[in-house]
């Protein structure tokens, strides 16, 4: 029931926003990594938030971090995730969004306070809107 409600909410939200015209990148909203656990991730996590929440943590995405994150989603935000599903999700996140993967797939793996103009100078040309 909760999931059905969520789906209705999500759909209403997208309709209300007129998705195609006001969220230019939404058609290309980043996709979850392929492989075992992806369907579960889409059903339990993507229903509320986009995958970029996950990607931004990949550079320090240890199993400990993913366990804490899934626990927070269940306990604080009441995501309908069973114990067994939680284990599967942590496995999926660790497998696909751990530090080693992050180093392979992002332009930068370190940050310092000398950083300025975020998004403007590294990682290639910024994408235009």
């Amino acid at each position: 029931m909760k999931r059905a409600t969520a789906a209705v909410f999500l759909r209403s939200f997208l309709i209300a926003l007129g998705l195609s015209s006001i969220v230019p990148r939404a058609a290309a909203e980043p996709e979850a990594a392929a492989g075992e656990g992806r369907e579960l991730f889409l059903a339990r996590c993507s229903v509320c938030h986009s995958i970029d929440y996950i990607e931004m943590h990949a550079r320090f995405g240890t199993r400990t971090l993913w366990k804490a994150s899934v626990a927070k989603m269940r306990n604080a935000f009441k995501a309908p995730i069973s114990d067994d599903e939680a284990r599967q999700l942590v496995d999926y996140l660790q497998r696909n969004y751990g530090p080693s993967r992050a180093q392979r797939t992002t332009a930068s793996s370190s940050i310092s306070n000398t950083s300025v103009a975020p998004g403007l100078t590294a990682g290639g040309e910024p994408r235009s809107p």
Partner: protein
Amino acid sequence: MLACLGGPKNFLWRKVMTLSRRDLTTRLLAGMTWPAVAATATGLPRKLLAATQQSLVTGREALVALPGKVALRRLTERPPNFETPLEYFRSVLTPNEAFFFRYHHAVIPLVVAEDFRLEIGGPAAERTPSLSLADLRGDFPVTEIVAVCQCSGNRRGLFDPPVAGLQWGHGAMGNARWRGVRLAAVLQRAGLRPNAVEISFDAADAPLLEGTPDFIKSLPLVKALHPDTLLAYEMNGAPLPVLNGFPLRVVVPGWTATYWLKHVNRISALDANEKNFWMASAYRMPRQLFPLIARFPGQETVERTPVTEIAINSLITSIERDGALQASRSALSGIAWDSGRGIDRVELSFDRGGSWRLCELGEDLGPYSFRPWRSDWPALAAEVHEVWVRAANKAGQSQVETPIPNPSGYQHNAYHRVKVQVRT
């Protein structure tokens, strides 16, 4: 909850976009930046200082424009969390179109101004008035204030070791001229009972799941009744952009943005402390870790305190889009800000903190505003240098050399450092 969504009738985006384009032009012409200063005394005429700084790239960030907004750095798509690129902080006031936004929930209301009602009540209210936007505009004295709205987690992405949460760079903040009415005046319409201890705020945004705690925040009575605390319907002379809280938001000068609820539509006078997730668990940090003056005693525990005031901070903004610092074209400049105590001094170091040079302070738009500063370039040898900036305020608060670690990555106010390569 769904009443705020609806169909095409409620579709405000085109209207908002039209307003925004016109207003952007107005503001760009208003010239709120420093006048260009020729670098005559720098000893480095016409020499380019190329910065070798690293950029903050933590995931799949991109510069993306949503309606009514210029291209901003997208941290997350849904709920939308977008930060302001550093170049926009060269203006003392941050253009509405470039102003950051942060949402906890994905359901963003498209409120029709004519239908909007602000409901006031709660167990410690004498009456339960319901106000339209016209009531708010017509029945109360209009008040304006310039104030920085800054996310508690601004610069979280710069903590080392990293901290979980939105990996903000420097841009989860903005400075605007807010126009609206005093919260105290609106609360007077309801009448507070002697047992009132907190004022809480709920808004028209909503989570996707029924069980997810709605975003409700409270303020201690003393801050809620402070004459600088507003309910604002305009920023920088224009209606609030949808993504910055149209049609009404709470403005809490000096305090972090977690209290500045967007789309606020319900205000309650409470006879007990608000205990929901967003007050009791989120936006908290260890007590006595930071030298904060403003406190929220009713919400403090033995070990933890809510985040309250904005920590004193500063930023170098005279950085070109490609990351270079040009000595030939402009002075070194930037902004400093705090929680309203007043910036006392801004200093630069070119020798990693060995010595400090005082900067000139610029236009003063009030204690809660960004305060611009500038300095000429000193003569520098042709090698790699670091430029550091730090600020101190009239209450004796100052920035720290390295950020103070805390579990949720709040209050990052370490010196801003920029590496520059001086070429001959």
